[in-house]
């Protein structure tokens, strides 16, 4: 197996981008990534595109072909494959591309992720997102996607004493980080009171505990490490890429205070990279809801199970804290165009490791981690990236 490096990154701004079409978004991110990598189109061997539900959000399927077309690569007939795993689509696309390069079958591979979610009205988006849950045994009964995380939140609060304020502090921190990120959907700072006074979506989760409906696209270019060494100045290699799956429904998993697939993926990823949780300098985790970030920092081994809320309260996950979490603003403030999220997380970590994160730069970040979840935990993808 070959070692794999990230040699280029590019993304659009995330937000309500009504003036831009899906194909414009995919093209913009892809072209930026290819330019950043300094790669000629002829050298690209394959393309993977993460996308959750273009069919329902914009009435367009077969989006892998759109990606190859907007990249100007259709005449070269390179293979382009769409990957779907709900909100983990981007992370799974990354994993597939990693496998392709590591195996030696392809050399240069572009990974994209995109979603255009704001073309449908409120209730429709809720129903589309509910398709990330079990349609027959969860959504059929009226359970929504925020509802699933609300069930985990109440359970976590009951079992460990995690408080509503601690949940709110996740959102406050991520909005602060988002205020330092020019690509973020929300760059306004908020307070704990703002979160607690916002409308309740699914008790105990308020509107400001939830990530937004977003449009956006992200892309990265992968290459064998040996090629990257000759080609790049700032080398970032992928030292682990692990995907783990579980039952789609929460009730089947019987675990409500964390995500077993994420715990499994993290353990395997640390082993693959030959490191431990304490070696991670910066992480982007899947904070689709504030409770998800608290469970993530526990599942990843940064804090003991049940201590995540306290860690947030004590500022340990802030930019200057023990382990800065979601320096980009996370899904909560950067935005969550579902198919793009897993790829955008990789971009934030690459920028941190290259020392290009501007005002949100974590000092001497050498090892970073991304954690991308599909549904309520049916899919989990963990990547570890390292400065070479």
């Amino acid at each position: 197996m070959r070692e794999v490096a990230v040699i280029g990154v590019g993304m659009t701004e995330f937000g309500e981008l009504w003036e831009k079409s899906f194909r414009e978004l995919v093209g913009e991110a892809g072209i930026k990534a290819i330019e950043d990598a300094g790669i000629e189109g002829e050298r690209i061997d394959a393309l993977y595109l993460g996308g959750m539900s273009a069919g329902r959000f914009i009435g367009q399927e077969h989006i892998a072909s759109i990606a190859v077309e907007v990249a100007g690569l259709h005449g070269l007939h390179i293979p382009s494959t769409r990957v779907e795993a709900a909100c983990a689509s981007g992370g799974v696309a990354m994993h597939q591309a990693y496998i392709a390069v590591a195996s030696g079958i392809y050399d240069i591979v572009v990974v994209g992720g995109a979603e255009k979610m704001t073309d449908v009205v409120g209730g429709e988006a809720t129903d589309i997102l509910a398709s990330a849950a079990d349609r027959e045994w969860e959504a059929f009964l009226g359970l929504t996607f925020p509802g699933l995380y609300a069930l985990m939140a109440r359970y976590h609060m009951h079992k460990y004493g995690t408080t509503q304020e601690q949940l709110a502090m996740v959102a406050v921190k991520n909005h602060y980080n988002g205020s330092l990120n020019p690509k973020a959907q929300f760059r306004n700072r908020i307070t704990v009171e703002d979160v607690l006074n916002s409308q309740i979506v699914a008790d105990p989760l308020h509107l400001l505990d939830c990530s937004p409906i977003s449009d956006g696209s992200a892309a990265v270019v992968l290459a064998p490490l040996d090629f990257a060494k000759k080609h790049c100045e700032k080398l970032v290699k992928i030292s682990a890429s692990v995907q783990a799956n579980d039952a789609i429904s929460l009730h089947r998993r019987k675990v409500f205070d964390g995500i077993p697939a994420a715990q499994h993926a993290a353990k395997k990823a640390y082993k693959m990279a030959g490191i431990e949780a304490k070696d991670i300098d910066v992480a982007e985790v899947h904070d689709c809801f504030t409770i998800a970030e608290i469970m993530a920092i526990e599942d990843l081994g940064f804090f003991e199970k049940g201590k995540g809320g306290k860690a947030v309260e004590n500022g340990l996950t802030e930019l200057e804290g023990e382990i800065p979490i979601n320096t980009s603003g996370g899904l909560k403030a950067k935005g969550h165009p579902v198919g793009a999220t897993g790829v955008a997380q990789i971009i934030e970590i690459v920028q941190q490791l290259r020392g290009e994160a501007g005002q949100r730069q974590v000092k001497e970040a050498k090892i970073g981690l991304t954690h991308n979840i599909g549904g309520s935990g049916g899919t989990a993808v963990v990547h570890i990236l390292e400065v070479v």
Partner: protein
Amino acid sequence: MGVARYWREIPSRYNLIGSKCNVCNEIFFPPIKICPNCRRKSIGKIEDYKLKGVGTVESFTIIRNAPPEFERNVPYVIALIKMEEGCYITGEIVDCEYDEIHIGMKVDACFRRIQQDGSAGAIYYGYKFRKAD
């Protein structure tokens, strides 16, 4: 929400029919074809099992922002219920004041209308839960 997709599930939805693995004796709901504990050894050893319908609330949420089919029911309570047989079920809790509902509350299953396709469309029935005495 196509009719056929839900119609075929009706036996389990109406009667809380799950599965029992006769190798490890674990009870499952919704029904399974292969046991996740015993896997291949369980082939041919899975049989239907009717749940008693009695359980305990493990967690719950009050949904205030619902998909189109449920908008007129808002707010409503969805819970994770641990059944006496050990499996968990997602279900709505009805006939109950919100401030009565708590983790640890005993519930039993009842048969109710779940949703309807428009004002004159097909009506889907299934299980819900209410406070047990």
